[in-house]
Protein backbone atom coordinates (compact mmCIF):
# COMPACT_ATOMS: atom_id res chain seq x y z
CA UNK A 1 0.00 0.00 0.00
CA UNK A 2 2.04 2.91 -1.23
CA UNK A 3 2.36 5.73 -3.68
CA UNK A 4 5.63 6.77 -5.21
CA UNK A 5 5.74 9.51 -7.74
CA UNK A 6 8.04 12.01 -9.30
CA UNK A 7 6.53 14.07 -12.05
CA UNK A 8 7.05 17.20 -14.07
CA UNK A 9 4.48 18.90 -16.20
CA UNK A 10 4.80 22.24 -17.95
CA UNK A 11 1.47 24.02 -18.38
CA UNK A 12 3.12 26.99 -20.06
CA UNK A 13 3.81 29.57 -17.39
CA UNK A 14 3.10 27.14 -14.56
CA UNK A 15 5.30 24.14 -13.89
CA UNK A 16 4.22 21.26 -11.69
CA UNK A 17 7.26 19.45 -10.33
CA UNK A 18 6.66 17.10 -7.46
CA UNK A 19 8.10 14.11 -5.71
CA UNK A 20 6.05 12.22 -3.15
CA UNK A 21 6.52 8.91 -1.35
CA UNK A 22 3.58 7.83 0.79
CA UNK A 23 2.90 4.62 2.66
CA UNK A 24 -0.32 3.13 3.95
CA UNK A 25 -1.66 6.32 5.49
CA UNK A 26 -3.47 9.56 4.80
CA UNK A 27 -1.42 12.29 3.21
CA UNK A 28 -2.74 15.83 3.00
CA UNK A 29 -1.74 18.21 0.26
CA UNK A 30 -2.04 21.62 1.84
CA UNK A 31 -1.77 24.69 -0.31
CA UNK A 32 -3.39 27.89 -1.50
CA UNK A 33 -5.75 27.67 -4.46
CA UNK A 34 -3.97 27.42 -7.78
CA UNK A 35 -0.81 25.87 -6.31
CA UNK A 36 -1.24 22.59 -8.20
CA UNK A 37 -2.85 20.36 -5.56
CA UNK A 38 -5.80 19.23 -7.68
CA UNK A 39 -3.58 18.85 -10.72
CA UNK A 40 -1.42 16.41 -8.75
CA UNK A 41 -4.47 14.21 -8.14
CA UNK A 42 -5.40 14.38 -11.81
CA UNK A 43 -1.92 13.25 -12.79
CA UNK A 44 -2.13 10.28 -10.42
CA UNK A 45 -5.57 9.40 -11.80
CA UNK A 46 -4.27 9.61 -15.37
CA UNK A 47 -6.60 12.40 -16.45
CA UNK A 48 -3.62 14.67 -17.02
CA UNK A 49 -0.45 13.24 -18.52
CA UNK A 50 2.83 14.49 -17.01
CA UNK A 51 5.65 15.40 -19.39
CA UNK A 52 8.11 13.21 -17.56
CA UNK A 53 8.58 11.15 -14.42
CA UNK A 54 6.94 8.10 -12.91
CA UNK A 55 3.90 7.18 -10.83
CA UNK A 56 3.70 3.89 -8.95
CA UNK A 57 0.86 2.64 -6.77
CA UNK A 58 1.51 -0.38 -4.53
CA UNK A 59 4.67 -0.97 -6.57
CA UNK A 60 2.84 -1.15 -9.91
CA UNK A 61 3.95 1.39 -12.47
CA UNK A 62 1.06 3.44 -13.84
CA UNK A 63 3.18 5.98 -15.62
CA UNK A 64 6.82 6.07 -16.59
CA UNK A 65 7.99 8.41 -19.29
CA UNK A 66 11.38 6.70 -19.55
CA UNK A 67 9.79 3.28 -20.16
CA UNK A 68 6.92 4.70 -22.20
CA UNK A 69 4.27 3.38 -19.83
CA UNK A 70 0.99 5.27 -19.49
CA UNK A 71 -1.81 3.08 -18.12
CA UNK A 72 -5.21 4.48 -19.19
CA UNK A 73 -7.41 6.01 -16.48
CA UNK A 74 -9.90 3.15 -16.72
CA UNK A 75 -7.27 0.54 -15.85
CA UNK A 76 -5.62 2.41 -12.97
CA UNK A 77 -8.22 1.58 -10.33
CA UNK A 78 -7.97 4.91 -8.57
CA UNK A 79 -10.76 6.53 -6.59
CA UNK A 80 -11.07 10.28 -7.02
CA UNK A 81 -13.73 12.29 -5.22
CA UNK A 82 -14.25 15.51 -7.16
CA UNK A 83 -15.04 18.84 -5.53
CA UNK A 84 -18.50 18.84 -7.10
CA UNK A 85 -18.83 15.05 -6.55
CA UNK A 86 -19.45 14.49 -10.31
CA UNK A 87 -22.52 12.32 -9.88
CA UNK A 88 -24.27 11.39 -13.12
CA UNK A 89 -27.41 13.56 -13.24
CA UNK A 90 -29.31 11.22 -15.56
CA UNK A 91 -29.10 8.33 -13.10
CA UNK A 92 -30.62 7.80 -9.68
CA UNK A 93 -28.70 7.06 -6.50
CA UNK A 94 -28.67 3.31 -6.99
CA UNK A 95 -27.65 3.55 -10.65
CA UNK A 96 -24.83 5.89 -9.73
CA UNK A 97 -23.49 3.45 -7.16
CA UNK A 98 -23.87 0.58 -9.65
CA UNK A 99 -21.63 2.49 -12.08
CA UNK A 100 -18.76 1.86 -9.68
CA UNK A 101 -19.10 -1.90 -10.22
CA UNK A 102 -19.87 -1.88 -13.94
CA UNK A 103 -16.42 -3.06 -14.92
CA UNK A 104 -15.80 -5.43 -12.00
CA UNK A 105 -16.07 -9.18 -12.40
CA UNK A 106 -19.19 -9.73 -10.31
CA UNK A 107 -22.51 -11.46 -10.74
CA UNK A 108 -25.73 -9.49 -10.80
CA UNK A 109 -26.59 -10.76 -7.34
CA UNK A 110 -23.23 -9.77 -5.90
CA UNK A 111 -23.62 -6.29 -7.34
CA UNK A 112 -27.06 -5.84 -5.85
CA UNK A 113 -25.81 -7.09 -2.50
CA UNK A 114 -22.77 -4.80 -2.56
CA UNK A 115 -24.96 -1.86 -3.52
CA UNK A 116 -27.33 -2.59 -0.66
CA UNK A 117 -24.42 -2.70 1.77
CA UNK A 118 -23.09 0.63 0.49
CA UNK A 119 -26.53 2.23 0.78
CA UNK A 120 -26.74 1.09 4.37
CA UNK A 121 -23.23 2.13 5.26
CA UNK A 122 -23.70 5.65 3.92
CA UNK A 123 -27.16 6.18 5.41
CA UNK A 124 -28.86 6.31 2.01
CA UNK A 125 -31.75 3.99 2.86
CA UNK A 126 -34.93 5.09 1.16
CA UNK A 127 -33.07 7.33 -1.28
CA UNK A 128 -32.13 4.55 -3.75
CA UNK A 129 -34.56 5.67 -6.44
CA UNK A 130 -34.11 9.40 -5.87
CA UNK A 131 -32.57 11.51 -8.58
CA UNK A 132 -29.33 13.29 -7.78
CA UNK A 133 -31.01 16.70 -7.89
CA UNK A 134 -33.25 15.68 -5.01
CA UNK A 135 -30.31 15.15 -2.65
CA UNK A 136 -28.69 17.59 -0.26
CA UNK A 137 -24.99 18.36 -0.58
CA UNK A 138 -24.11 15.94 2.20
CA UNK A 139 -26.13 13.12 0.67
CA UNK A 140 -24.49 13.76 -2.68
CA UNK A 141 -21.09 13.38 -1.10
CA UNK A 142 -22.13 10.10 0.49
CA UNK A 143 -23.34 8.75 -2.84
CA UNK A 144 -20.09 9.79 -4.49
CA UNK A 145 -18.04 8.09 -1.75
CA UNK A 146 -20.18 4.96 -1.93
CA UNK A 147 -19.76 4.84 -5.70
CA UNK A 148 -15.98 5.14 -5.37
CA UNK A 149 -15.64 2.56 -2.61
CA UNK A 150 -17.67 -0.14 -4.37
CA UNK A 151 -15.26 0.20 -7.31
CA UNK A 152 -12.50 -1.12 -4.98
CA UNK A 153 -9.84 1.48 -5.72
CA UNK A 154 -6.22 1.00 -4.68
CA UNK A 155 -5.85 4.63 -3.72
CA UNK A 156 -8.41 7.09 -2.42
CA UNK A 157 -8.07 10.73 -3.41
CA UNK A 158 -10.29 13.48 -2.05
CA UNK A 159 -10.26 16.87 -3.73
CA UNK A 160 -11.45 19.56 -1.28
CA UNK A 161 -14.22 17.24 -0.04
CA UNK A 162 -15.94 19.84 2.14
CA UNK A 163 -15.65 22.97 0.05
CA UNK A 164 -19.19 22.68 -1.32
CA UNK A 165 -20.81 22.25 2.10
CA UNK A 166 -21.90 24.71 4.74
CA UNK A 167 -20.09 24.63 8.06
CA UNK A 168 -22.97 22.86 9.81
CA UNK A 169 -22.68 19.82 7.53
CA UNK A 170 -18.91 19.89 7.38
CA UNK A 171 -18.32 18.56 10.84
CA UNK A 172 -20.72 15.67 10.47
CA UNK A 173 -19.30 14.63 7.12
CA UNK A 174 -15.77 15.00 8.34
CA UNK A 175 -16.48 12.46 11.07
CA UNK A 176 -17.90 10.06 8.49
CA UNK A 177 -15.00 10.59 6.17
CA UNK A 178 -12.50 9.85 8.93
CA UNK A 179 -14.28 6.56 9.52
CA UNK A 180 -14.07 5.74 5.81
CA UNK A 181 -10.38 6.62 5.71
CA UNK A 182 -9.75 4.51 8.79
CA UNK A 183 -11.34 1.47 7.17
CA UNK A 184 -9.74 2.01 3.78
CA UNK A 185 -6.85 -0.34 3.13
CA UNK A 186 -4.51 1.71 1.05
CA UNK A 187 -2.97 5.10 0.58
CA UNK A 188 -5.29 8.05 0.71
CA UNK A 189 -4.68 11.64 -0.26
CA UNK A 190 -6.64 14.65 0.90
CA UNK A 191 -6.39 17.97 -0.89
CA UNK A 192 -7.34 20.99 1.15
CA UNK A 193 -6.53 24.58 1.96
CA UNK A 194 -8.06 24.30 5.42
CA UNK A 195 -5.38 23.78 8.06
CA UNK A 196 -7.73 22.56 10.81
CA UNK A 197 -9.31 19.97 8.56
CA UNK A 198 -5.91 18.77 7.41
CA UNK A 199 -4.60 18.54 10.95
CA UNK A 200 -7.55 16.46 12.12
CA UNK A 201 -7.69 14.06 9.19
CA UNK A 202 -4.17 13.38 7.93
CA UNK A 203 -1.01 11.69 9.15
CA UNK A 204 1.55 13.43 6.99
CA UNK A 205 1.33 16.79 5.29
CA UNK A 206 2.92 17.99 2.08
CA UNK A 207 2.79 21.75 1.78
CA UNK A 208 2.42 22.59 -1.90
CA UNK A 209 3.49 25.95 -3.19
CA UNK A 210 3.70 27.13 -6.77
CA UNK A 211 3.70 23.62 -8.24
CA UNK A 212 6.26 21.97 -5.98
CA UNK A 213 6.43 20.29 -2.60
CA UNK A 214 7.63 23.02 -0.26
CA UNK A 215 7.98 20.69 2.70
CA UNK A 216 6.83 17.23 3.67
CA UNK A 217 6.63 16.02 7.23
CA UNK A 218 4.59 14.57 10.03
CA UNK A 219 1.58 16.80 10.67
CA UNK A 220 2.59 17.61 14.24
CA UNK A 221 6.03 18.65 13.14
CA UNK A 222 4.66 20.91 10.41
CA UNK A 223 2.25 22.64 12.72
CA UNK A 224 4.61 23.00 15.66
CA UNK A 225 7.77 23.70 13.81
CA UNK A 226 7.12 25.01 10.33
CA UNK A 227 10.55 25.69 8.87
CA UNK A 228 9.51 27.30 5.62
CA UNK A 229 7.66 30.54 4.96
CA UNK A 230 4.89 28.75 3.02
CA UNK A 231 4.28 26.12 5.67
CA UNK A 232 4.17 28.75 8.42
CA UNK A 233 1.73 30.82 6.35
CA UNK A 234 -0.53 27.85 5.60
CA UNK A 235 -0.54 26.64 9.18
CA UNK A 236 -1.84 30.00 10.32
CA UNK A 237 1.13 32.21 11.09
CA UNK A 238 0.35 35.81 10.15
CA UNK A 239 3.37 37.80 11.33
CA UNK A 240 6.70 37.60 9.53
CA UNK A 241 9.94 39.46 9.37
CA UNK A 242 13.03 38.95 7.33
CA UNK A 243 15.81 37.74 9.58
CA UNK A 244 19.58 37.99 9.89
CA UNK A 245 21.37 35.61 12.19
CA UNK A 246 23.17 37.11 15.18
CA UNK A 247 23.93 33.94 17.11
CA UNK A 248 22.40 30.51 17.63
CA UNK A 249 19.37 31.94 19.45
CA UNK A 250 19.13 35.52 18.29
CA UNK A 251 18.27 37.21 15.01
CA UNK A 252 17.90 40.78 13.80
CA UNK A 253 14.39 41.42 12.52
CA UNK A 254 14.59 44.50 10.28
CA UNK A 255 10.86 44.49 9.52
CA UNK A 256 10.10 44.82 13.21
CA UNK A 257 13.05 47.04 14.03
CA UNK A 258 14.41 44.91 16.90
CA UNK A 259 16.55 41.89 17.58
CA UNK A 260 14.67 38.81 18.72
CA UNK A 261 15.68 36.02 21.03
CA UNK A 262 14.34 32.61 19.99
CA UNK A 263 14.15 29.29 21.79
CA UNK A 264 14.42 27.46 18.45
CA UNK A 265 17.96 27.22 17.15
CA UNK A 266 18.84 29.76 14.46
CA UNK A 267 20.70 28.11 11.58
CA UNK A 268 23.15 29.84 9.27
CA UNK A 269 20.73 30.15 6.37
CA UNK A 270 17.84 31.70 8.31
CA UNK A 271 15.56 33.71 6.04
CA UNK A 272 12.48 34.65 8.07
CA UNK A 273 11.14 34.55 11.55
CA UNK A 274 7.45 34.32 12.31
CA UNK A 275 5.15 34.97 15.21
CA UNK A 276 1.91 33.15 15.76
CA UNK A 277 -1.04 35.43 15.99
CA UNK A 278 -2.62 34.18 19.16
CA UNK A 279 -1.60 34.29 22.81
CA UNK A 280 0.29 37.54 22.89
CA UNK A 281 0.02 39.63 25.93
CA UNK A 282 1.16 43.17 26.22
CA UNK A 283 4.52 43.22 27.94
CA UNK A 284 4.49 43.59 31.69
CA UNK A 285 7.91 44.08 33.15
CA UNK A 286 9.91 42.31 30.40
CA UNK A 287 12.65 44.22 28.63
CA UNK A 288 14.08 41.68 26.23
CA UNK A 289 12.08 40.68 23.14
CA UNK A 290 9.73 43.57 23.61
CA UNK A 291 8.62 45.66 20.70
CA UNK A 292 6.86 49.00 20.97
CA UNK A 293 4.05 49.45 18.49
CA UNK A 294 1.52 52.00 17.34
CA UNK A 295 -2.01 50.66 17.16
CA UNK A 296 -3.23 51.15 13.59
CA UNK A 297 -6.60 49.54 14.16
CA UNK A 298 -8.36 47.58 16.86
CA UNK A 299 -10.99 45.18 15.52
CA UNK A 300 -13.50 43.66 17.86
CA UNK A 301 -13.89 39.93 17.36
CA UNK A 302 -16.35 37.60 19.07
CA UNK A 303 -14.20 36.99 22.15
CA UNK A 304 -11.02 38.94 21.55
CA UNK A 305 -9.63 42.10 20.12
CA UNK A 306 -7.55 41.83 16.97
CA UNK A 307 -4.91 44.54 16.87
CA UNK A 308 -3.17 45.75 13.76
CA UNK A 309 0.15 47.13 14.89
CA UNK A 310 3.13 48.88 13.38
CA UNK A 311 6.50 48.51 15.04
CA UNK A 312 7.94 51.83 16.01
CA UNK A 313 11.63 51.19 15.42
CA UNK A 314 11.48 50.50 11.67
CA UNK A 315 13.06 52.71 9.00
CA UNK A 316 10.62 52.01 6.18
CA UNK A 317 7.47 49.93 5.94
CA UNK A 318 7.46 46.67 4.00
CA UNK A 319 4.90 43.95 3.29
CA UNK A 320 5.81 42.44 6.67
CA UNK A 321 5.89 45.49 8.89
CA UNK A 322 2.34 45.27 10.23
CA UNK A 323 1.64 42.81 13.03
CA UNK A 324 -1.63 41.04 13.80
CA UNK A 325 -2.01 40.14 17.43
CA UNK A 326 -4.92 39.05 19.51
CA UNK A 327 -5.57 40.17 23.07
CA UNK A 328 -8.48 39.30 25.29
CA UNK A 329 -11.15 42.00 25.65
CA UNK A 330 -10.45 42.11 29.35
CA UNK A 331 -6.80 42.95 28.81
CA UNK A 332 -7.69 45.48 26.14
CA UNK A 333 -10.14 47.24 28.43
CA UNK A 334 -7.53 47.45 31.17
CA UNK A 335 -5.07 49.28 28.90
CA UNK A 336 -4.87 52.96 29.58
CA UNK A 337 -3.06 53.91 26.40
CA UNK A 338 -4.96 52.42 23.49
CA UNK A 339 -2.78 54.09 20.85
CA UNK A 340 0.49 52.46 21.82
CA UNK A 341 1.20 48.96 23.08
CA UNK A 342 4.31 47.00 23.95
CA UNK A 343 4.31 43.40 22.81
CA UNK A 344 6.38 40.64 24.33
CA UNK A 345 7.58 38.11 21.75
CA UNK A 346 7.77 34.87 23.70
CA UNK A 347 10.93 33.10 22.50
CA UNK A 348 9.16 29.73 22.20
CA UNK A 349 6.50 31.27 19.95
CA UNK A 350 9.02 32.64 17.48
CA UNK A 351 9.23 30.41 14.40
CA UNK A 352 12.49 30.17 12.52
CA UNK A 353 12.36 29.61 8.78
CA UNK A 354 15.17 28.70 6.46
CA UNK A 355 13.25 29.57 3.27
Amino acid at each position, binding site marked *: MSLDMKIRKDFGGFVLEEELHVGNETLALLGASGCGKSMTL*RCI*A*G*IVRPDEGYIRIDGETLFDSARNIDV*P*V*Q*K*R*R*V*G*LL*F*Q*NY*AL*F*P*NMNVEQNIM*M*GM*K*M*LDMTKKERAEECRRAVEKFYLNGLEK*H*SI*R*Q*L*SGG*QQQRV*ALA*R*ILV*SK*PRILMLDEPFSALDSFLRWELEQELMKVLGEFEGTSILVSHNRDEVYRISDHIAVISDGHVDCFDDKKEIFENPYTYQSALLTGCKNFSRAERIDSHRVAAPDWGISVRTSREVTEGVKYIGLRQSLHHPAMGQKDNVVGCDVLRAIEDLNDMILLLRCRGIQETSEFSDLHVTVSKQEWNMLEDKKHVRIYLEPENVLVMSR
Partner: protein
Amino acid sequence: MDLFPLWNSLRIAVISSVIVFFTGIFCAYYVAKLPRLLKGALDVILTLPLVLPPTVVGYFLLMLLAPATPLGSWVDEHWSLRLVMNWQSSVAASAVVAFPLMYRTARGAFEGFDETLRYSAQTLGLSNTYIFWRILMPYCKQGIIAGLVLSFARGLGEYGATSMVSGYTPGKTATISTTVYQLWTLNDDHGAFIWVMINLAISAVVLLAVNLFERKDRETRTKAAAAGMRG
Protein backbone atom coordinates in the same frame (compact mmCIF):
# COMPACT_ATOMS: atom_id res chain seq x y z
CA MET B 1 -54.91 14.96 -55.37
CA ASP B 2 -51.42 13.61 -55.85
CA LEU B 3 -49.81 13.39 -52.41
CA PHE B 4 -46.40 12.44 -53.77
CA PRO B 5 -44.77 15.80 -52.76
CA LEU B 6 -45.80 15.23 -49.13
CA TRP B 7 -44.37 11.73 -49.05
CA ASN B 8 -41.24 12.83 -50.89
CA SER B 9 -40.64 15.83 -48.60
CA LEU B 10 -41.10 13.71 -45.50
CA ARG B 11 -38.71 10.99 -46.59
CA ILE B 12 -36.13 13.56 -47.64
CA ALA B 13 -36.44 15.37 -44.31
CA VAL B 14 -36.33 12.16 -42.26
CA ILE B 15 -33.38 10.59 -44.09
CA SER B 16 -31.37 13.81 -44.20
CA SER B 17 -32.05 14.37 -40.47
CA VAL B 18 -30.73 10.91 -39.68
CA ILE B 19 -27.60 11.54 -41.74
CA VAL B 20 -27.10 14.96 -40.19
CA PHE B 21 -27.73 13.59 -36.69
CA PHE B 22 -24.76 11.25 -36.89
CA THR B 23 -22.39 13.38 -38.96
CA GLY B 24 -23.21 16.54 -37.00
CA ILE B 25 -22.64 14.87 -33.63
CA PHE B 26 -19.51 13.14 -34.86
CA CYS B 27 -18.01 16.42 -36.11
CA ALA B 28 -19.15 18.37 -33.05
CA TYR B 29 -17.58 15.81 -30.71
CA TYR B 30 -14.20 15.80 -32.41
CA VAL B 31 -14.05 19.50 -33.31
CA ALA B 32 -14.77 20.46 -29.68
CA LYS B 33 -11.59 18.63 -28.67
CA LEU B 34 -9.30 20.26 -31.24
CA PRO B 35 -6.76 23.00 -30.51
CA ARG B 36 -8.16 26.49 -30.90
CA LEU B 37 -6.73 27.48 -34.27
CA LEU B 38 -7.75 24.28 -36.06
CA LYS B 39 -11.12 24.44 -34.35
CA GLY B 40 -11.74 27.94 -35.64
CA ALA B 41 -10.80 27.01 -39.19
CA LEU B 42 -12.92 23.85 -39.29
CA ASP B 43 -15.77 25.70 -37.68
CA VAL B 44 -15.86 28.18 -40.56
CA ILE B 45 -15.89 25.44 -43.18
CA LEU B 46 -18.54 23.35 -41.43
CA THR B 47 -20.83 26.32 -40.79
CA LEU B 48 -20.52 27.79 -44.29
CA PRO B 49 -23.67 26.10 -45.71
CA LEU B 50 -25.69 27.96 -43.08
CA VAL B 51 -24.72 31.41 -44.32
CA LEU B 52 -24.36 30.72 -48.05
CA PRO B 53 -27.49 31.16 -50.19
CA PRO B 54 -28.92 27.66 -50.82
CA THR B 55 -28.55 28.16 -54.55
CA VAL B 56 -24.81 28.60 -54.07
CA VAL B 57 -24.74 25.35 -52.09
CA GLY B 58 -26.71 23.77 -54.95
CA TYR B 59 -24.17 25.10 -57.43
CA PHE B 60 -21.31 23.52 -55.49
CA LEU B 61 -23.18 20.24 -55.25
CA LEU B 62 -23.75 20.23 -59.01
CA MET B 63 -20.02 20.94 -59.51
CA LEU B 64 -19.34 17.83 -57.47
CA LEU B 65 -22.09 15.41 -58.50
CA ALA B 66 -23.22 16.25 -62.04
CA PRO B 67 -22.64 13.55 -64.70
CA ALA B 68 -19.95 15.67 -66.37
CA THR B 69 -17.81 15.84 -63.22
CA PRO B 70 -15.15 13.22 -62.38
CA LEU B 71 -17.17 11.77 -59.51
CA GLY B 72 -20.46 11.81 -61.44
CA SER B 73 -19.02 10.18 -64.55
CA TRP B 74 -17.14 7.59 -62.50
CA VAL B 75 -20.29 6.52 -60.66
CA ASP B 76 -22.26 6.52 -63.93
CA GLU B 77 -19.63 4.34 -65.58
CA HIS B 78 -19.41 1.78 -62.79
CA TRP B 79 -22.98 1.55 -61.57
CA SER B 80 -24.95 3.40 -64.28
CA LEU B 81 -26.25 5.69 -61.57
CA ARG B 82 -26.93 9.38 -61.76
CA LEU B 83 -26.20 11.48 -58.69
CA VAL B 84 -28.47 14.39 -59.62
CA MET B 85 -32.08 14.94 -60.66
CA ASN B 86 -33.54 12.25 -58.41
CA TRP B 87 -34.94 12.23 -54.87
CA GLN B 88 -31.72 10.89 -53.39
CA SER B 89 -29.90 13.97 -54.60
CA SER B 90 -32.51 16.04 -52.74
CA VAL B 91 -31.51 14.15 -49.60
CA ALA B 92 -27.89 15.15 -50.19
CA ALA B 93 -28.88 18.79 -50.73
CA SER B 94 -31.06 18.90 -47.60
CA ALA B 95 -28.38 17.21 -45.53
CA VAL B 96 -25.69 19.68 -46.57
CA VAL B 97 -27.92 22.67 -45.87
CA ALA B 98 -29.17 21.33 -42.52
CA PHE B 99 -25.80 20.02 -41.32
CA PRO B 100 -24.56 23.27 -39.70
CA LEU B 101 -27.69 23.51 -37.56
CA MET B 102 -27.09 20.10 -36.03
CA TYR B 103 -23.35 20.58 -35.82
CA ARG B 104 -23.50 23.94 -34.07
CA THR B 105 -26.19 23.10 -31.54
CA ALA B 106 -24.51 19.79 -30.70
CA ARG B 107 -21.15 21.48 -30.30
CA GLY B 108 -22.65 24.07 -27.99
CA ALA B 109 -24.18 21.28 -25.94
CA PHE B 110 -20.92 19.32 -25.77
CA GLU B 111 -18.97 22.40 -24.73
CA GLY B 112 -21.40 22.88 -21.86
CA PHE B 113 -20.73 19.34 -20.65
CA ASP B 114 -19.24 19.08 -17.18
CA GLU B 115 -15.90 17.42 -17.88
CA THR B 116 -15.55 16.16 -14.33
CA LEU B 117 -18.37 13.72 -15.17
CA ARG B 118 -16.21 12.25 -17.90
CA TYR B 119 -13.19 12.06 -15.60
CA SER B 120 -15.05 10.47 -12.73
CA ALA B 121 -16.62 7.94 -15.11
CA GLN B 122 -13.16 7.09 -16.39
CA THR B 123 -11.76 6.59 -12.90
CA LEU B 124 -14.66 4.19 -12.27
CA GLY B 125 -13.43 2.20 -15.26
CA LEU B 126 -16.22 3.05 -17.72
CA SER B 127 -15.19 2.93 -21.38
CA ASN B 128 -15.22 6.08 -23.50
CA THR B 129 -17.96 4.64 -25.74
CA TYR B 130 -20.14 3.94 -22.73
CA ILE B 131 -19.49 7.42 -21.37
CA PHE B 132 -20.44 8.95 -24.73
CA TRP B 133 -23.79 7.17 -25.09
CA ARG B 134 -24.86 6.84 -21.47
CA ILE B 135 -23.54 9.99 -19.82
CA LEU B 136 -22.57 12.63 -22.39
CA MET B 137 -25.56 12.17 -24.70
CA PRO B 138 -28.21 12.15 -21.94
CA TYR B 139 -26.54 15.20 -20.42
CA CYS B 140 -26.67 17.04 -23.75
CA LYS B 141 -30.12 15.71 -24.69
CA GLN B 142 -31.76 19.13 -24.85
CA GLY B 143 -29.25 20.60 -27.26
CA ILE B 144 -29.13 17.50 -29.41
CA ILE B 145 -32.92 17.35 -29.77
CA ALA B 146 -33.09 21.06 -30.54
CA GLY B 147 -30.51 20.55 -33.28
CA LEU B 148 -32.39 17.57 -34.65
CA VAL B 149 -35.68 19.45 -34.81
CA LEU B 150 -34.05 22.42 -36.51
CA SER B 151 -32.40 20.10 -39.03
CA PHE B 152 -35.66 18.30 -39.73
CA ALA B 153 -37.53 21.58 -40.24
CA ARG B 154 -34.76 22.89 -42.48
CA GLY B 155 -34.75 19.68 -44.51
CA LEU B 156 -38.51 19.80 -44.91
CA GLY B 157 -38.53 23.36 -46.17
CA GLU B 158 -35.36 23.24 -48.25
CA TYR B 159 -35.93 24.77 -51.66
CA GLY B 160 -32.90 26.42 -53.24
CA ALA B 161 -30.30 23.69 -53.24
CA THR B 162 -32.91 20.98 -53.87
CA SER B 163 -34.34 22.67 -56.93
CA MET B 164 -30.85 23.05 -58.36
CA VAL B 165 -29.68 19.47 -57.93
CA SER B 166 -33.04 17.69 -58.35
CA GLY B 167 -35.21 20.09 -60.30
CA TYR B 168 -38.97 19.62 -60.35
CA THR B 169 -40.34 16.44 -61.84
CA PRO B 170 -43.88 15.58 -60.72
CA GLY B 171 -43.99 12.14 -59.15
CA LYS B 172 -40.22 11.94 -59.09
CA THR B 173 -38.48 14.85 -57.41
CA ALA B 174 -41.36 17.15 -56.51
CA THR B 175 -41.31 18.29 -52.87
CA ILE B 176 -43.80 20.49 -51.03
CA SER B 177 -41.73 23.62 -51.44
CA THR B 178 -40.97 23.07 -55.13
CA THR B 179 -44.62 22.17 -55.74
CA VAL B 180 -45.84 25.40 -54.14
CA TYR B 181 -43.58 27.37 -56.41
CA GLN B 182 -44.52 25.35 -59.49
CA LEU B 183 -48.26 25.60 -58.87
CA TRP B 184 -47.98 29.30 -58.22
CA THR B 185 -46.12 29.96 -61.48
CA LEU B 186 -48.90 27.98 -63.24
CA ASN B 187 -51.45 30.34 -61.65
CA ASP B 188 -52.94 27.44 -59.65
CA ASP B 189 -53.44 29.55 -56.52
CA HIS B 190 -55.81 27.03 -55.00
CA GLY B 191 -53.38 24.13 -55.37
CA ALA B 192 -50.52 26.19 -53.99
CA PHE B 193 -52.67 27.21 -51.03
CA ILE B 194 -53.44 23.58 -50.15
CA TRP B 195 -49.74 22.73 -50.08
CA VAL B 196 -48.99 25.83 -48.05
CA MET B 197 -51.55 24.68 -45.50
CA ILE B 198 -50.09 21.16 -45.42
CA ASN B 199 -46.67 22.63 -44.81
CA LEU B 200 -48.00 24.86 -42.03
CA ALA B 201 -49.71 21.89 -40.39
CA ILE B 202 -46.52 19.81 -40.35
CA SER B 203 -44.49 22.70 -38.93
CA ALA B 204 -47.10 23.34 -36.25
CA VAL B 205 -47.12 19.67 -35.23
CA VAL B 206 -43.34 19.59 -35.00
CA LEU B 207 -43.12 22.75 -32.91
CA LEU B 208 -45.94 21.61 -30.66
CA ALA B 209 -44.21 18.30 -30.07
CA VAL B 210 -40.99 20.11 -29.15
CA ASN B 211 -42.78 22.42 -26.73
CA LEU B 212 -44.59 19.55 -25.07
CA PHE B 213 -41.37 17.65 -24.68
CA GLU B 214 -39.56 20.67 -23.22
CA ARG B 215 -42.33 21.42 -20.77
CA LYS B 216 -42.38 17.84 -19.53
CA ASP B 217 -38.65 17.88 -19.07
CA ARG B 218 -38.81 21.22 -17.24
CA GLU B 219 -41.56 19.96 -14.95
CA THR B 220 -39.54 16.95 -13.84
CA ARG B 221 -36.58 19.25 -13.25
CA THR B 222 -38.48 21.76 -11.13
CA LYS B 223 -40.11 18.96 -9.20
CA ALA B 224 -36.72 17.45 -8.51
CA ALA B 225 -35.24 20.81 -7.57
CA ALA B 226 -38.10 21.55 -5.18
CA ALA B 227 -37.73 18.15 -3.55
CA GLY B 228 -33.99 18.77 -3.29
CA MET B 229 -34.59 22.02 -1.43
CA ARG B 230 -36.90 20.30 1.00
CA GLY B 231 -34.44 17.49 1.58
